[in-house]
C-alpha cells in the first residue's frame, strides 16, 4: 500500500474513533449523533433480520425499471435525432423547454397520475435519466465519422446492419457515458421520490426512522445507501471497462 493511502486510512480511522469517544462521553446529544458502535450494531441487526436487504430490493426494482425504460426509449430516440437533422430540429425546442425542470419537481405530477405506487417512482426516474441518456447519445451519433456511413452505403449494407455494425459501435462510448452519468441520478431520484411519497424503500426507511426518532436506525439506513451507491458505481465501472475494451478493439480493426 502507498504510504499516502495508509495515512488516509489512519486519518479516517482516527476520525471514527473520535466519533465513538465523543458520543460515548455524551458530549453531543445521542438523539442527534449516536455512538458509532451502536449504529454498526443496529446496521448488522437490520441486515440479518432482512429488513435492510428488503428495503434495498424494493428501491432497486423501481430504480432499475425506470432506468431501463429510459434507456429503451431515449437511446433509440437519440440515435434517430443524431442521424436526422430534421427530427432533431423538430424536437429541439420541446426538449429545451423541459430540460430546465429540476427532476424532483416532477414528483408531484407523478403523484397526481400514479398515486404513491411504484409507477410514480418509475416515471420520475424515467424522466430524470432521460436528458443525460438522450443528449449523450445525440452527441455520440453526431460525432460519427461520415466516411464510416458512406462506406457502409458503398458496401450496400442494409439499414439495420448499418445501425448495428456501424452507428451503434461507433457511438457507444458516448452512449455508455450517458448511462453512467444517469446512474447516480437514478439513485438520488429513487431516494427522493420514496421520501416524498412511499410506504417502503430505502429512502422511506431513512426518513421514517428519523420521524420516529430511531436515530441509529436512520444512520444505518444511510450506511446501507452509501454501500449501495459504491457497489453500483464499481459494478458499472467494471462493465464500462469491458465494454470499452471491446470498443477500442473494434475501432482498431476498423482502422
Amino acid at each position, binding site marked *: 500500500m502507498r504510504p*499516502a*493511502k495508509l*495515512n*488516509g*486510512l489512519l*486519518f*479516517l480511522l482516527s*476520525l471514527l474513533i473520535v466519533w465513538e469517544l465523543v458520543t460515548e462521553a455524551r458530549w453531543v446529544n445521542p*438523539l*442527534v449523533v449516536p455512538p458509532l458502535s451502536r449504529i454498526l450494531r443496529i446496521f448488522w441487526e437490520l441486515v440479518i433480520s432482512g429488513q435492510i436487504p428488503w428495503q434495498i430490493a424494493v428501491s432497486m426494482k423501481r430504480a432499475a425499471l425506470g432506468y431501463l425504460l429510459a434507456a429503451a426509449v431515449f437511446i433509440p430516440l437519440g440515435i434517430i435525432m443524431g442521424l436526422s*437533422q*430534421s427530427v432533431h*430540429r*423538430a*424536437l*429541439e*425546442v*420541446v426538449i429545451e*423547454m*423541459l430540460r*430546465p*425542470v*429540476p*427532476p*424532483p*419537481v*416532477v*414528483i*408531484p*405530477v407523478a*403523484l*397526481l*397520475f400514479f398515486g404513491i405506487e411504484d409507477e410514480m417512482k418509475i416515471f420520475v426516474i424515467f424522466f430524470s435519466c432521460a436528458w443525460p441518456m438522450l443528449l449523450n447519445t445525440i452527441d455520440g451519433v453526431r460525432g460519427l465519422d461520415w466516411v464510416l456511413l458512406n462506406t457502409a452505403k458503398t458496401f450496400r449494407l442494409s439499414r439495420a446492419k448499418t445501425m448495428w455494425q456501424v452507428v451503434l459501435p461507433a457511438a457507444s462510448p458516448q452512449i455508455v457515458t450517458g448511462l453512467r452519468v444517469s446512474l*447516480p441520478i437514478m*439513485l*438520488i431520484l429513487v*431516494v*427522493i421520490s420514496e*421520501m*416524498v411519497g412511499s410506504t417502503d424503500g430505502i*429512502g422511506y426507511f*431513512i*426518513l421514517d*426512522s*428519523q420521524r420516529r426518532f430511531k*436515530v441509529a436506525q*436512520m*444512520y444505518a*439506513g*444511510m450506511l446501507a*445507501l*452509501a*454501500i449501495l*451507491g*459504491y457497489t453500483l*458505481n464499481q459494478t458499472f465501472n467494471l462493465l464500462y471497462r469491458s465494454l470499452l475494451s471491446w470498443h477500442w478493439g473494434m475501432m482498431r480493426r476498423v482502422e
Partner: protein
Amino acid sequence: MEERNKFNWAGWLSFGFLLLLWELGSRSVPKLQLFIPPVSQVSTALAQLTVAGPIAEHFTITVSRFAAGYFLSAALGVSLGIILGYFRSLHSLVEILIEVLRPMPSVAIIPVAVLMLGIGDSMIVAVTVYATVWPILINTLDGVRHIEEMLIQTGRTFGLSQRKILWQVILPAASPYIGTGLRIGLSIALILVTTAEMVAGSKGLGFFILDEERSMNSSNMYAGILVVAVLGYIINRLFLLLEAKIMKWHHGMMTRQTA
C-alpha cells in the same frame, strides 16, 4: 454552423402543436382535466397567483435559499479545492474520507439535517451546501492538479509571493475546471432546495407545488412547475453569459502566455 443561427421554425411549430394538442385534448376529455387542465387554465392560474402574491413569496424564499446555499458552496468548494490541490499531503490525508462520503446520494442527508437544525431555512441551506460542494470541490481540485508544475515554478522564480501565485497563476489556470464545477453545482443546488422544501418545508416553490398537488389544485401545481423551470432556465443562462465573459478573458490570458 449557419443552420444553427436560423430561427428553428420546425421546433417552435411542433412545440406550439403540442400545446394546442394539450389544450384541445384536455377540453374534450373532462375526465382528464383533473390531471391535465387546459394550458389556458394553467396560465390563468399563474397570472392569478402572481397578482395575488403567493407565487412571488414562494419564489423569493426559494431564490434566497438557493443563493445562500450556492454561494456558500462556491466559496467553500473553490477554496477547499485549491488548498487540497496545492498541498498534496493534505489531499492524500482526506482522499479516502472523500471517497467514503461521496457515493451516498446527498439527499439522504436531509433527515440528519432536520434532526440537527429543524425545518427552517438553515436546514435547507445546509443540505444544499453539503450536496453542492462536491462537484465544485472535485473539479477545482482536478483543475489545480492539472496545472503544470512549470507555471508555478516560473512564478516562484520571478519572486511572486504566495498570494500572487494563487491569484495570478493558480486561479486563472484552473478556471475552466472551476467553471465546470460551478455549472454542475447550479442544477444540483436547485434540485436540493426544491427537494428539501418538499420533504420538510412549509414554504418555497418545492413546498408550494407538492402542497397544491395534495389539495388537487393541478392548475396551480403546473403553474408552480412552470415558475421553477423558468427559474432554472434563467439561472443557467445568467451563468453561461458570465462564464463566456470570464472565459474570454481567460483565453486572452492563455494566448498571451503561449505567444
